[in-house]
C-alpha cells in the first residue's frame, strides 16, 4: 500500500458501525484499491457490519454510496452502507419552555423524600434533594436537604435546606418555630415568629434569610410559569 492510498480512505470504528472517510475527488478505481487492503485487514469483522461513508465534498456522498455500496456488499459482505447521520436539530429555547410548561411534570421522576411521622430530639433526616415531612420536627431534631424542606406540621428543630450552597432553596412549615434555619451557607438563629399560626416560608433575599407569611407573601406567586424545582 503506498502513501497516497492512505490519504484516500480512512476507516475507523464508531459505535456499532464502521466509519469510512473517502476522498470523492479521486477515481472509483483508486478508491476501491485503497479500500480493499483496509477491509481485508478487518477480515471477519467486516461481515454484516454497518458502514457509514463520509465523502469529503459531502454533496457527492450519495453518488459515492451508489458506486461503493454494491462493491462493499459483494466483496466484503457488509450489511448496509449509509450516509452519516444528520446533525441534531437545534430546538429553539421558546419551544423548550413550551414543552416544560406543557408536560414537564408528567414525565418528571420525583426526587423528594417524603416522611410521615414525628421527628424526635436526636433524630436526623437527610435528603439528597427535597424533603417533605408530614408531621412535626421536634426541638433537638434535625432536617437536612439538598433542596427545599416542607414541613406539614410544626418546625421546632433545626432545618438546613439547600445543602451545601443552593441559596434558592426554601423552608416552609405550617407552624414555623425553628431553633435554627440554614439555607445554602446562610444561617439564621432562633427566629421568633410570634405565634402567627399561619404557614410561613423562609427564603434568601439579599444574602439574608427572610421569613414571610406563606399565604400572603408566597414568593412563587410571582413566577410566570409553573416550574419544576
Amino acid at each position, binding site marked *: 500500500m503506498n502513501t497516497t492510498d492512505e490519504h484516500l480512505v480512512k476507516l475507523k470504528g464508531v459505535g456499532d458501525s464502521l466509519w469510512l472517510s473517502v476522498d470523492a475527488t479521486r477515481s472509483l478505481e483508486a478508491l476501491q484499491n485503497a479500500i480493499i487492503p483496509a477491509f481485508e485487514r478487518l477480515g471477519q469483522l467486516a461481515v454484516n457490519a454497518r458502514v457509514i461513508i463520509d465523502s469529503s465534498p459531502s454533496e457527492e456522498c450519495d453518488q459515492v454510496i451508489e458506486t461503493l455500496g454494491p462493491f462493499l456488499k459483494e466483496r466484503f459482505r457488509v450489511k448496509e452502507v449509509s450516509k452519516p447521520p444528520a446533525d441534531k436539530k437545534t430546538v429553539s429555547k421558546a419551544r423548550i419552555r413550551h414543552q416544560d410548561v406543557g408536560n414537564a411534570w408528567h414525565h418528571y421522576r420525583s426526587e423528594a423524600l417524603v416522611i410521615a411521622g*414525628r421527628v*424526635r*430530639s*436526636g*433524630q436526623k433526616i437527610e435528603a439528597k434533594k427535597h424533603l417533605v415531612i408530614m408531621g*412535626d420536627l*421536634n*426541638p*433537638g*431534631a434535625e432536617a437536612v436537604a439538598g433542596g427545599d424542606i416542607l414541613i406539614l406540621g410544626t418546625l*421546632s428543630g433545626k432545618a438546613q435546606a439547600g445543602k451545601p450552597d443552593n441559596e434558592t432553596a426554601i423552608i416552609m412549615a405550617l407552624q414555623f418555630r425553628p431553633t435554627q434555619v440554614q439555607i445554602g451557607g446562610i444561617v439564621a438563629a432562633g427566629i421568633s415568629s410570634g405565634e402567627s399560626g399561619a404557614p410561613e416560608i423562609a427564603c434568601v433575599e439579599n444574602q439574608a434569610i427572610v421569613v414571610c407569611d406563606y399565604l400572603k407573601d408566597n414568593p412563587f406567586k410571582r413566577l410566570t410559569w409553573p416550574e419544576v424545582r
Partner: protein
Amino acid sequence: MEGKVIVMTSGKGGVGKTTVTASVGAALALQGKRVAIVDMDIGLRNLDVVMGLENRIVFNVVDLIQGRCKLKQAAIKDRRIDNLFLIPASQSDDKDVIKPENMVWLTNKLRKEYDFTLLDCPAGIEHGFKNSIAAADEAIVICTPDVSAVRDADRVIGLLYARSITPKLVVNRISPKMVENGDMLSHDDIVDVLSIDLVGLVEMDDQVVVSSNTGVPLVTNRESKAGMAFQRIAMRLNGQPDLPIENPMVQRGFWRTIGKKLGRRNKDAK
C-alpha cells in the same frame, strides 16, 4: 400469670424518677400487688434512702446477677408496706459490670415472683439506660414542665420506640399557678410535643422533700396532692387505664372567682 416489668426513665436528671418510682411502687403494693423496685443507678444509689431502707442493705443487684446471693436475700422488704421489696444498687461497683443479657435473666426471675417490677433508670442514655430498657415490657417517661426536660424526654421516647417499647408519660412538678400565669409549660404543650399517652399529672408538693428525707412513703399521706396523684397513676397501671386524669388547678375562693369573672367582663367591655 407473669408480672410486668416497667422502666421509669426520663433522660434528664433531677426530674423525680426516683420519687415517682418509690411512690408508684408503694401505691401498687398498697393496692395488694407484689412489687419489686430495682435501683439501676449502679454507683450512685439513692432509692434506698428515699424508701428509708439504707441500713438494711446486705446484698445488692450486682451480687444477685453475679450469683453471690439469691433473689430472696437481695430483695429487702419495706418497713411499712408488706408487699413492697427493694433490690438496691451497688454503691462500689462500676456501672459496666451489668450487661443487657444479665438484665433479661434478672427480669425473667422477677416476673415469676412479683406482679410489678419497677426499674429506676439512671439519668442519661448510656450504659445504665440501655441495661434498664433491655428487658422492660413497658416504660414510663417522667418529664417536668421545662424545655430541657421535654427535649431529653423526646430523645428517650425515640430510643424507646426504636426498641418497640411504647412509653407513657407522667408530668411531674406542675405548678398550677405558674402555668396559669404563662410562666410554665402546660401539660397540653408537653403532650403536644411528645405525643404519647398521658398516665398522670403530679403537682409540685413540699411533702415530697419531707417524705424523701424521712423515708416515709408519700402515698400514705392523704394530705399530699402528689401522693394522691401517685395513687391514681398506680391505679391506671393496675387495670384501670380509663381513670380520668385530674388537671392540677389553682384553688380559688368563691368570691375571688366571681371577682375575676367580673373583672374579665369589664376588660372585654373596654
